């Protein structure tokens, strides 16, 4: 692999840092200095990453540490997520638009899809030509890339026992290998949807009180029911949809700020959970024991965490 780093951290002020996991230590390398405000990070190919900043998308080469290309979007709003699929860049914008941008400039196949009033998350389906969106009062929708039409729309959450409307604020979406979808909400709900079934309401859901969920990650070991969720108050929960109880299986403690991103990494031949939080710390928890193995102060405010793609898929 061209990735020499185990992970790449993107900071709010535009800094990029590569992290190597050493025994009892993190080793950092500066990739990019603070310049432009950074919104999101995503993988382009084996050696490049996409940096999205406000209305720009930049290709950044990790090897040469240089910007190679630049794409602009004519939309009022910030980009919240980008991914690459079949020679096309697909970007979700804050105001609810999804913009399809061809990588090579000569083809002009500019497309726009309106997904709703607000967008906070966009993810691609791993194997198929589909993507999922969600936002404030904009429940999960799965779109087909070729036709640009909705394939599946989740129903807004069921009203409570007094028949009052419950809010809906999607914060993150992830896919299992059997194409089931997990959606985390800012109001402390994680839902499991099955797009293949006729049921539009969640198949299973877990709840937490007094916190909201910010980040979500499915487990990499082909188990189709387990997720790891980072909350807005600093704990990381491990949920299992198989049981009847809606309580978390395990809690990973240690952070005092909102967990911006979680991922599973292989560290010292054991599964560990790597997380960045708004209290400017990088943490690694042991998955089996739940202990905090390593933590370090990374000074600036981190926003995005990219794990070496090889390990993210295994």
């Amino acid at each position, binding site marked *: 692999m061209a990735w020499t780093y185990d992970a790449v951290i993107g900071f709010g002020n535009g800094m990029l840092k590569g992290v190597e996991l050493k025994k009892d230590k993190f080793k950092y390398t500066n990739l990019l*200095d603070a310049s432009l405000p950074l919104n999101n990070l995503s993988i382009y190919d084996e050696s490049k990453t996409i940096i999205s900043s406000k209305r720009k998308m930049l290709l950044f080469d990790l090897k040469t540490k240089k910007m190679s290309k630049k794409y602009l979007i004519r939309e009022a709003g910030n980009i919240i997520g980008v991914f690459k699929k079949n020679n096309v860049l697909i970007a979700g914008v804050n105001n609810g638009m999804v913009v399809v941008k061809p990588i090579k400039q000569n083809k002009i196949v500019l497309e726009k899809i309106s997904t709703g009033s607000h967008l906070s998350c966009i993810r691609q389906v791993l194997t198929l030509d589909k993507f999922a969106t969600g936002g404030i009062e904009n429940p999960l929708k799965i779109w087909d890339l070729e036709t640009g039409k909705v394939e599946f729309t989740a129903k807004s959450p069921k009203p409570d026992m007094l028949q009052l409307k419950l809010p809906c604020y999607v914060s993150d979406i992830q896919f299992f290998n059997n194409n089931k979808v997990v959606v985390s909400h800012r*109001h402390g709900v994680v839902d499991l949807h099955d797009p293949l079934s006729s049921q539009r309401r969640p198949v299973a859901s877990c709840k937490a009180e007094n916190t909201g969920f910010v980040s979500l990650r499915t487990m990499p070991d082909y188990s189709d029911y387990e997720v790891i969720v980072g909350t807005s*108050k600093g704990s990381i929960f491990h949920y299992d949809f198989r049981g009847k109880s809606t309580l978390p299986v395990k809690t990973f403690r240690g952070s*005092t*700020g*909102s967990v911006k991103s979680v991922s599973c990494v292989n560290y010292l031949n054991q599964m560990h959970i790597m997380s960045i939080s708004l209290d400017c710390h990088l943490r690694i928890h042991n998955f089996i024991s739940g202990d905090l193995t390593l933590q370090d102060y990374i*000074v600036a405010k981190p926003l995005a965490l990219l794990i070496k793609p090889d390990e993210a898929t295994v």
Partner: protein
Amino acid sequence: MAFTRVATSKMDSENEVGESQAGPELPKLARKKPRGLLRQEKLKDLKNKKKIQKRDRKLRKASGDPKQVPRTIENTREPDSTVFHSDDEDYDQKTQDLAAEFEHDEFADYYSDLYKPKVLITYKEKPLRKVREFGKILTEIVPNSVRIFRRDASVKETIQAAINKGYTDLVIINEDRNEPNGLILVHLPDGPTAYFRLSNVIFPNKRQRKEFTDHRPEVITTNFTTGLGKTVARMLGAVFHQDAEFKGRHVVTMHNQRDYIFFRHHRYKFLKNKPYLRELGPKFTLRLQYLQEGLYDPKCGEYRWIMTDKRHKIETSRRRFFL
């Protein structure tokens, strides 16, 4: 005593015959001393200890050794990873990163002197007399500030209205039983939001109120050491005007000690090159409860640091401080 008991038991196990011949040696019971005697002995011990300490001090003074440093909570504080020490491994890199972070954060515009702060001060829905009085005094101290009643407008509505009117900071004072007890500070237009517990408010008396002037005060924020503390200090500093009017000789001090932020307002004077302070008031204490990313949003907001609901998990030690 215990020793003898062990010895006898050992003997027991070794040969039972010997025991039956001589008879077991019973341990002597300790005679209970009367209580008064115990106290007397304790006092005596203490006196002796002090005597020894005094003698040692004298000896040390005579020999010219350095003075011993008393152990306080501050100097035995638990090490914090966000405090920089110059002998750290990557000290240079970290200070560089921090400088870069401060160049690009929400208060960068204020500290590079791009705008003048404009502050809006409001209260809870129906404020009582004491809180209104408190807000009035705050408007007199904070330059370029306006106070309004927010009636039945929610905090979020107030924030939106304030952004539209071009305010840069918003202060909301809460009260409980006619006593100011909370303060929300929002930096506009895109956060962060801090909630402080407010306590020990002492209002200026008549004499002090007479000495208030319209001059812009100097602002000092001291003893904020950690990463969180620096952010809070920057936030508090950004409420006041950047260039002070030194003619007025007013100082506003926000001093952090053991996570409590003490607010003081003084007037200074130099007499024969010696500074003299005169307290103007008000005095109050702030304690950070949470620091939130973005605008005020208690339900789905993200927190940079939060203490509510998990104080017992965070406050694990008396010697651990966050600011």
